[in-house]
């Protein structure tokens, strides 16, 4: 997974959409959902909500017990088994439904843990500066450079049959560094703002300044860092299960792929065994990435994909609109100079 340098770093929050003074109380209600007006973000949130729903009710709505064997061995998708069956006659649709919970829970726990760590380390480093900053930055840079996945694989393999919670904790503890780095950079630029200086001058405690003056202005970065970590955590969990390191007794989408790979599903042409799980993962990842784009574009409107950029002028020519440009069209015939004089 490539992490793109977030565009948020370049945006000064004081000038972004976040910092607009809240309007009259009557309008506040409408603005609360403005984030969802962005088509990308709305799509992402809707897909995520569906996944969340399945994570909660999947256990009860699953048509079969995911472990139950039956005589329908290695069946292609049909009305009885929507996603087909495994080599033991287990229903793959039920496995996917039941597995959703583990995936979502691990993503959530690891995301929350990594976000808390990144706030603690990043904001503290940025706000305090000096030796504390040097030390904490070095720490997060070290964690950033060390390849996380091999480390996670090795640490998890030491524990026999690691449970979901443990996997989530290991992932959370190794994936906070990116967020910490971005938060530190942003805190550095906020630290010398007038309103922070004012709070300091009135004798506010450091903790209060960080909590009430700095943190609210970091909301967008924290949110996008959280979403990014959840993507990484979900991928890592599924990878661990696929390699067969974490517990294979509980169902998640990686476990399904683990059995599919182990039972030579490919060689037997049982595409239904691994395609649904992969698509479920990809769709979840897309939903989270879309939410992140939404946050990016919410903060930095320039990044929105422009609508129509070709414009037809009255005399039938086309001009391409670009940021920072006013298209100037050479007149096709001499235009008489305007006669009106500007009033002094």
């Amino acid at each position: 997974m490539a992490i793109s340098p977030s565009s948020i770093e370049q945006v000064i929050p004081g000038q972004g959409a976040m910092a607009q003074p809240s309007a009259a109380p009557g309008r506040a209600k409408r603005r609360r959902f403005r984030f969802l007006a962005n088509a990308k973000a709305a799509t992402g949130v809707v897909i995520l909500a569906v996944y969340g729903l399945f994570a909660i009710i999947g256990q009860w709505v699953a048509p079969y017990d995911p472990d139950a064997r039956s005589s329908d061995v290695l069946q292609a998708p049909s009305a009885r088994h929507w996603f087909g069956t495994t080599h033991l006659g287990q229903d793959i649709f039920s496995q996917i439904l039941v597995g959703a919970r583990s995936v979502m829970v691990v993503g959530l726990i690891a995301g929350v843990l990594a976000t808390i760590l990144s706030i603690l380390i990043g904001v503290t480093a940025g706000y305090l500066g000096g030796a504390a900053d040097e030390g904490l930055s070095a720490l997060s840079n070290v964690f950033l450079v060390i390849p996380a996945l091999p480390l996670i694989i090795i640490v998890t393999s030491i524990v026999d049959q690691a449970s979901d919670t443990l996997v989530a904790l290991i992932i959370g503890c190794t994936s906070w560094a990116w967020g910490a780095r971005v938060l530190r950079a942003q805190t550095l630029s906020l630290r010398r703002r007038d309103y922070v200086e004012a709070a300091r001058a009135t004798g506010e405690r450091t903790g209060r300044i960080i909590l009430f003056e700095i943190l609210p202005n970091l909301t967008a970065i924290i949110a996008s860092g959280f979403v990014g970590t959840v993507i990484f955590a979900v991928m890592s969990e599924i990878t661990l299960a696929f390699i067969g390191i974490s517990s294979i007794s509980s169902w998640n989408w990686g476990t399904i792929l683990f059995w599919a790979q182990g039972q030579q599903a490919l060689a037997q042409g049982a595409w239904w065994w691994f395609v649904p799980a992969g698509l479920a993962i990809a769709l979840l990842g897309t939903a989270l990435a879309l939410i992140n784009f939404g946050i990016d574009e919410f903060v930095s409107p320039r990044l929105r994909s422009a609508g129509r950029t070709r414009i037809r002028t009255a005399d039938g020519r086309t001009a391409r609109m670009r940021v920072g440009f006013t298209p100037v069209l050479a007149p096709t015939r001499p235009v008489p100079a305007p006669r009106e004089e500007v009033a002094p």
Partner: protein
Amino acid sequence: MRFLLQRVAFYLFTAWAAITLNFFIPRLVPGDPVQSLISRNQGRISADAVQSLRVLFGLDKNENVWEQYLDYWRQLFHGDLGLSFTFFPTPVSTVIGDSLPWTVGLVGITTIVSFLLGTALGVGAGWRRGSWIDGLLPATTFLSSIPYFWLGLVAIALFAGPGSFFPSSGGYEPGLVPAFDQYFIPSAIQHSILPAATILVSSMSGWILSMRNMMVTVSSEDYITVAHAKGLSERRVALSYAARNALLPNVSGFALSLGFIVGGTLLVEIVFSYPGLGYQLFQAVGAKDYPLMQGIFLIITISVLVANLLADVAYLLLDPRTRKS
């Protein structure tokens, strides 16, 4: 120069941290893995080898942790990473030496190609914002959300199979001896096409997106307007003015995300049974071969550090500001 020295110092520090981490991880292993190995291979382990493994696992009760730590460093400097359990009694360094060229070849080349290609496409997408390339962005997002290994599985199901041109596993035709000759090289290339394509497809979109966003940010800068006002050609403004400045954050992003990319590509090797470090790590994990796992982790980390250093040198060449003092 000062910038480079600072970076080298940082990487040395990181290497030290990784090695220290590597020293402590096996001490968390429950039980006595060395004892179980000895009982499995009765009488076939030399006393030296046992001693080396005991140092590695910290089972030498006569020493305190500090002495163990010094011993560990002494072993490392001799290139001694212990003996592999699975390929007993081959030293870990030999096993790694056999698989490292495969990984460097596959992962190294695809990572660089994907970065260059993705950046070039991103320049196009960012410069012509609102063109059809913007419409492709959601598709690339979807592709990059697919786990590498799953894409590999699908690629095998679709393209490989009996009678197909693409082999589904291995790094070269079984029966060939690795050498630089007319039989081995084509076979190796043929085996690497599918894994390489998998890595390219899933890793490229990240670069496209970040470069596009940087281009959009840069293209509204004053110096771009000035360049246009001077009447420079569109192409010159896009490449020498906008892209050159937009490239800098992407290069530093490249350095930082190398760790993630390498982690992901190791999985592709597992799916394709490609004889590189990732596949070796997979086998080591399955066999609980701790010395091999650690050795691979160490080598991967150090390779990533070296690649980072190279990216820093590239940054130094691209950004004159870092050369000033």
